[in-house]
């Protein structure tokens, strides 16, 4: 089976461009990683410090939401090009799930 495997050599300019981009991406990843750990620390501290649950629970939920966003956009690369369609499907799914939950807490009585 003679299937031509195409080998494309990068030009030096192209190589430098890709490398610069990769470096920048790496820096972003590390920063976000540090941020995520910091947010996790805040959550644990908030629980340990013994604040009122009325304060702690919303804060933890908020941080969790931020972390989900960071996870999706940075570590799962949704901020990069070509992720518009998955994003659209995810947000549609989120909307429908939200409506379902809203229904169940408002018009389904117990």
């Amino acid at each position, binding site marked *: *089976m003679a*299937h031509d495997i195409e080998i494309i050599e990068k030009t030096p300019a192209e190589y430098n461009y890709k490398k610069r981009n990769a470096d920048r991406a790496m820096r972003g990843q590390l920063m976000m990683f540090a941020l995520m750990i910091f947010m996790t620390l805040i959550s644990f501290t908030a629980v340990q410090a013994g604040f009122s649950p009325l304060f702690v629970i919303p804060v933890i939920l908020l941080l969790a939401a931020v972390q989900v966003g960071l996870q999706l956009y940075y570590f799962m690369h949704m901020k990069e090009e070509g992720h518009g*369609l998955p994003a659209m*499907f995810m947000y*549609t*799914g989120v909307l*429908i799930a939200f*409506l*379902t939950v809203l*229904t*169940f807490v*408002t*018009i*389904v*009585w*117990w």
Partner: protein
Amino acid sequence: MTTAANTVAQKKGFGATLWDWLTTVDHKKIGILYLIGGGFFFVLGGIEALMIRLQLLVPNNDFVSAGFFNELITMHGTTMIFLAAMPLLFGFMNAIVPLQIGARDVAFPFINSLGFWMFFFGGLFLNLSWFIDAAPDAGWTSYASLSLASTGHGIDFYAIGLQIAGGGTLMAGINFLVTIINMRAPGMTYMRMPLFTWTTFVASALILFAFPPLTVGLFFLTFDRMFGGNFFDVDYGGNTIIWEHIFWIFGHPEVYILVLPSFGIFSEIFTIFSRKRLFGYSAMVFATVLIGFLGFMVWAHHMFTVGLGPTANAIFAVATMAIAVPTGVKIFNWLLTMWGGSIRVTTPMLYALGFIPSFVMGGVTGVQQGAAPLDYQLHDSYFIVAHFHYVIVGGVVLAILAATHLYWPKMFGTMLSEKLGKVTFWFFFIGFHMTFFLQHFLGLMGMPRRVWTYNADQGWDLFNMISSAGALLMAIGVIVMVINIIMTTAKNERVGNDPWEDGRTLEWAIPSPPPFYNFAQTPLVRGLDTYWIEKQDGNKKGYIPAEPLSDIHMPHGSFIPFVMSLGLFIAGFGAMFRVEHSWGLPVLIAGLVLTFLSMSLRSVKDDLGFYVTKEEILRTERGSK
């Protein structure tokens, strides 16, 4: 025309042919399998419908018992929606959509095959209930308090059978999404996709979001009935309304899953037989997406009488009426596509012409029911029966029959008789209106839905009799179509690439039936109605190739999907008889083991497919000229 593949197939013995069909991953063959499976269940559902109408022919009839009548209506609804309408549409999607976007197969051929076999075994499981115990008898909606009270295994068959078949549907939906997103030929932008591809895309997205709720609901029901759960059992703190919400969160989008591809089929027919491009293409696409989106916001209009409160009812009533707007856009676009076109009234076009008034009637009664106060009057009456049959028969079944005539030459290489086709249409169309038009008035006169029999002299006798006579006409129409199919197959007069002569989209640019690799070279798409553009430019080949002729990578067939589905089928029986028979649990485990073993076999075994060589392609292409 005889392709090389066909010549080989004709020389094969029966066993080899059977094996070929059991293991096929070719989207065109799976399309045909869906048509056979869906057609079989369509006939079953039709027989059930005839028995229902026979029972209601005269007042105080005792042709069937009340209990058996409940089984008939339940199985008629369930079979027609899940096992006939949807698979038949899947058949056409499978056969046509990859051709329309210039692809060689769907994105996941293996999963495509698995989806079919799960549908088939799920449907088989559900219908075996007639012979093994009792058929489900709580209506196709299977509302929880009633379905939990149902004795025997009927509802168990419903829950497990639909679970298996629904899994197959979900897979098929995801497969079409990935195919349409990733496998379009160069130049086929989203806004150049034929309308049937667009509607398949939106319907698949609806499947993706609507079927998981059904899965959850059916699992709840399964646990409640077979494993001691109490999700819906009010005595133990459950809530029976939850089933209704879950079912309709799935059930309303399901209507659009059925009707959107039908819209797509009719859009193709209107453009082909009016010799004009579709009027307002982008508005059509937008309307399709909007209908799909709004389809998720309206489910509670099935539950106005539950007592959700005036606020919830008002919100859902307004949302329901909003759907009439994009649907109206579509209707007017179809009319304006025909406006000034050079119309040929072929059999598919006849169906399309009959579809518009029929579907509009179903839509108008739908808006009436969308008004919550009026719905209190109409709820659970024959008015509802008339409404949804106008939508589903007038929209979906007419589309399926039209598509059978339109795409038969592309799928099988022979042309169904136009004369018999028109006979079928008139029998079916007149029968359909006879059966269901008067049911509106039966409903307004107070005849309740799902009623086993009725007393004489309430003014219902004549209308019921006419209604039953209409059902017979529809049956005659379908029988004529079967005769048509048999005669056409026996005559076997082969047709060329573009048998309707005015084909506009890519599927008409290649032989009928297409060679198993579809396109010798991936086509280049230069605009909407690709093949039409090439014809106008005098391109004899039918499409511009986007790549040089080279070896084509194709997937191997596989028997694993069949075994996987068989495992679930066996496990279903185990789950059902677990409590009363000692063999239940071992059978449940054995079935699941079979499924998981075949899954791991699939994971472990590397199957890299094979290459069709350039020489073989050239030989096939010469043979098909």
